[in-house]
Structure formats: structure tokens, C-alpha cells
């Protein structure tokens, strides 16, 4: 189920393309925004919206890395560890986050507040090390800055 507002948006997006299929990514984004992750139920629902067989929607969800196929914490923290960030000590940021949150990469805190994951290059190489949470980029990180960010993310 998607909100009325999103369903209206999907109808509008369909006018951008010669067939409804290209709207599949947008519809999956909306599902993830509303539900936090994409269940099989979500895939079937989206398949109906964009006139695709459900197994093909499954193929899409498993191809793209940003879709959550299981529930995640309220804040999904994605730390870039690729080369430019690595050169500027992203491993220290990773270690600090693991210690502060008491979880390993890929895990969620027991209070469901944070999920910590490793990300591939996020296009912020000049402002390394960095992490993404939601739409926000947090750049030029050090340990104190990470602490401030964590305390802001309720």
C-alpha cells in the first residue's frame, strides 16, 4: 500500500515514459520511504502498479544496492571506505562507529536506532572521510564530528 499522494505521483510519472515500466524504481523508492524496507508484499504491490511480473520486480530489487530487503534501523548509516576515503582514514571512522554503537558493519543496534553499513564510493572524495544517512552527506569527518552526528540522530 502506498499513500494517496504517492499513488498520484506515480500516475504523473507514468506520463514521462512510453510505458509504465520505467516507474518501477520510483515506486520502489516510495515503498521503501513509507515502509523502511521492501518486502515481497511490496514487490508484488509495485509490480501491479507498473504492470510488471512480480519476479521481474524481484530481479530489480536484488540488482540495486540501495533497496533494503530486510528491515533496517531508523537511521541507516553508510560509511564510504573506497580509495579516497581510505586514504583519509575512513577505517578509523568505521572503528569508532562500531565501538560507539557496539555493532559490526551490517548490523543493527538492539534498540533499532541505527544500522551500520559499508558503502561504495558516494561521490564525496574531496571531502573524505564521509558517511551518508538518509539524504544527508556528512563530510570531513573526525571522531568528535561522528559523536555529534550520532547524538543528533534520535
Amino acid at each position, binding site marked *: 500500500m502506498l499513500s494517496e499522494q504517492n499513488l498520484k505521483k506515480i500516475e504523473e510519472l507514468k506520463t514521462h515514459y512510453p510505458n509504465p515500466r520505467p516507474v518501477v524504481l520510483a515506486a520502489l523508492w516510495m515503498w521503501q520511504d513509507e515502509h523502511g524496507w521492501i518486502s515481497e508484499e511490496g514487490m508484488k504491490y509495485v509490480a501491479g502498479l507498473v504492470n510488471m511480473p512480480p519476479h521481474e520486480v524481484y530481479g530489480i530489487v536484488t540488482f540495486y544496492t540501495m533497496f533494503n530487503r530486510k528491515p533496517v534501523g531508523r537511521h541507516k548509516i553508510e560509511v564510504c571506505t573506497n580509495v579516497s576515503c581510505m586514504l583519509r582514514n575512513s577505517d578509523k571512522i568505521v572503528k569508532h562507529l562500531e565501538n560507539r554503537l557496539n555493532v559490526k558493519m551490517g548490523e543493527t543496534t538492539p534498540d533499532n536506532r541505527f544500522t551500520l553499513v559499508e558503502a561504495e564510493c558516494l561521490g564525496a572524495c*574531496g571531502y573524505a572521510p564521509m558517511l551518508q544517512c538518509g539524504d544527508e552527506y556528512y563530510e570531513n569527518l573526525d571522531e568528535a564530528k561522528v559523536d555529534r552526528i550520532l547524538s543528533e540522530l534520535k
Partner: protein
Amino acid sequence: MEKLILPNIPDLHKLDVYEANGGYQMLRKALGMKPEEVTDEVKKSNLRGRGGACFPTGLKWTFMPKNSDKPKYLCINGDESEPGTFKDRQIFEDNPHLMIEGGLIAAYAMGVQTIYLYIRGEYNKWIKMVQRAVDDAYAKGYIGKNILGSNFSTNFYIHRGAGAYICGEESALMNSLEGERGYPRVKPPFPAQFGLWGCPTTINNVETIANVPLILRMGWEAYSKIGHPKHPGPILVGISGHVNAPGVYEVPTGVLITDLIYGNPSIGEKYGRGVPGNKKIKAIIPGGSSTMIMRGDAIEGVTMDADGLKAAGSSVGTAGLIVMDEDTDLIRVITRITKFYYHESCGQCTPCREGTGWMFKILKRFENREATMEDIDLLLDVANNIEGNTICALGDAAAWPVQSMIKRFRDEFEKRVMKSNGTAKRKSPDIVHALR
């Protein structure tokens, strides 16, 4: 040099400020020209694509059929995901209307009725910024039906990706846009003949398109005199790694790489402001992670342009310059880069799908000091068998860094072979379980 793509004008991302600085006047000018005259102008300017391949932009546009009963499409590639590359994002943030205006001019030149701007999913913050600019341009009649009272109509839609480096490859981008998995297509047929939904399509990088209004404003002749004659124009260089002032710098092509790193006081530019702690440079990657690594003692006199870097045994790529100081562990660097290509391989072609994983597995052995001397040649053998044997260039992009690292830093590998006489037990995890 005067900044053309990212001029230092406050609030230039706002439509009224952009208009007050001559914005959308080049669209007006183009609409007063014949479409082929616009293409000709771009062709004569010698603008070459800024997405990595340096293909002549005007020539690419001429591949589009003049008369077609099918709709024609322009895709602007904003999937920027190559490690070391972070320039298009600066255009989205600081000068989105320049790219929109360029897209409209390109669409007019090629008779395109629909423009799609594909932006990587992680850039949602910037997607929202560009969407605001697009909405404003629609409201002012720069996009839509009968643009500025002419017979020319086109739409401009933003399409958000969802996390896949491969979607920056033009044919994968089209498949992704069509709602498929982002698998590259076999070429030929090329996009100009058989692109989106089988229709004529051109794909240009965001920065390439942002150069188009500049060419019309200056005229092709003046534009072609900026920077290197064979690869002219302003170019956005992203400097990252071990420099004091990393960031995106707009420079004319042909600037010395050493100037980009250390600055050049004689022209009042500081650029990267040198290496922290005044350390020596061990290596650089000049144009994003797929370009060949260069020794720090071999960068003197090398310039940031297609010819200069080709002659030096690398390539300009996306001009994402990564600097590594003398204390850098290059085995870690190449292992991390290879892990990226392994993760991002779409899985269609066996040499890439399997080969990237094998390379990562062998490199892990070097990282953990569990490799043997023979592993160096084994690694090279795998890289050589990926290169040229895949549908798209991701295979090459994975092979080149490994090949160049072995060629130019073989001693680094030799230093990391197993210290014991081969009796040590390997601890490196099996690759299949090490990732996801």
C-alpha cells in the same frame, strides 16, 4: 582563468540570478539558428566528452538520424560513481541551469523531444536541487511546449537510480531507465540507431552538456583555444587523497598535474596546496579509479588532458585525481579498488564476474602476506584475460589498475609475498563468503 562552468557568483543556482548573468540567452540564440548549425558549432569547438571516453561530442550528435519516424531521446548521464569522481555533483549544486540550458540546446540540435537526466540514487539531495531548477525553467517557458515561442518542444525529466556503478555505462543506463536490471548491451547497434525503447538516443555526461552554452556564448573558435588544442575547454578536476586542499577545481585542460597538486603561484592558483607534512608522492591515479596508476616520480611535466596522459601511459578519464603520499600502502589501495569492481560487476560476462573476484582473492593474499611470487603473474594473467573480453568497459576498468600496479610497482608485490617458506597456513577467507 575565468571560471566558466562554476563561476563565483552567489546564488547562481537560482533562476533569476542565472538569467541576470546571461542565462538562457544561448538557448534563445540556438533557436534562431538551424539545428545543424548548432551541431556544427559544437563539432568545430572540439569539445570532447567529460565522462571518461573523451569522444568528440559534435561528432556523436551527427550520428543521430536526421529523419526518423521514431521519437528521439537525449540522456544526460549523472550517474557519477567512479571512485575519485565528484564533479557533476558540483554542477547540480552550483550551476544546474547551465546544464539544463545545454541539454535544451543539444535537444534542439538533434531534434529530441524528451530529455532524461539520470542521477545516481545516493544523490537524492542534489536530485531535489536540480528538480527545483527544472520546475522553475518549466514555469518560465524554457522547457515544455513551443519553447520561447518557437516550434521546438521538449520535456526534461529526472530519473533517479538506486545504487549501481554500472548504470553509468551508457547502455546499462538505458536499460536501467527502461525499468530493467542495469545490464550493458552488446554494441552494435549503437544508441544513435537503437537506444531507449529501440529509438535513436544520445547519451552525454553532465559536464559535457554544461559546456554547450559556453561554446555558443564564446563562439567555437574562442572556445577551442582554451587549454589543450586537441582536448580544449574548461575541465572540472576533482582532487582527493593526500593533498592539503582536496576539492573540485575548474581549470583549462592541459594544466600540469604537479600544478594541480602543489599550486602555481605565477598564475595565483593554489589548487591542492601540496601534500600534508610535505611528504613525497608515491603514486597518483589521474582520472578516477579505472585509469592506470602512475609513479610519483613520473608525473613531472605531465598535463591533465587526453593526449598528455595517454603519452604518460594513463588516461584522463573523469579527471578525478587521487594523490597518494610516500607512506601509502599500495597493496591496500589496489585491493580496495578491485573489491569495488568485484562488487559492481553486473555479472553478465564470465571473465568480469569471476575474474574480478579472483583478482580480489589473490590481492587479499598479498594484503595478508600469504601470497607467493607466482601469485604476481597469476594476478596479471587474470587481469589480462578480463581485458577486452567483456560486453562493456567495466572489465577493462577492473583490469587496468591491476595491470598498471604490477607494471609500475612490482616491488610492492614482491615485498608482500609470504615471509615463511610456504608452510604458513592461509587465513584469507574464501572470496564468496567474504563479500555479502
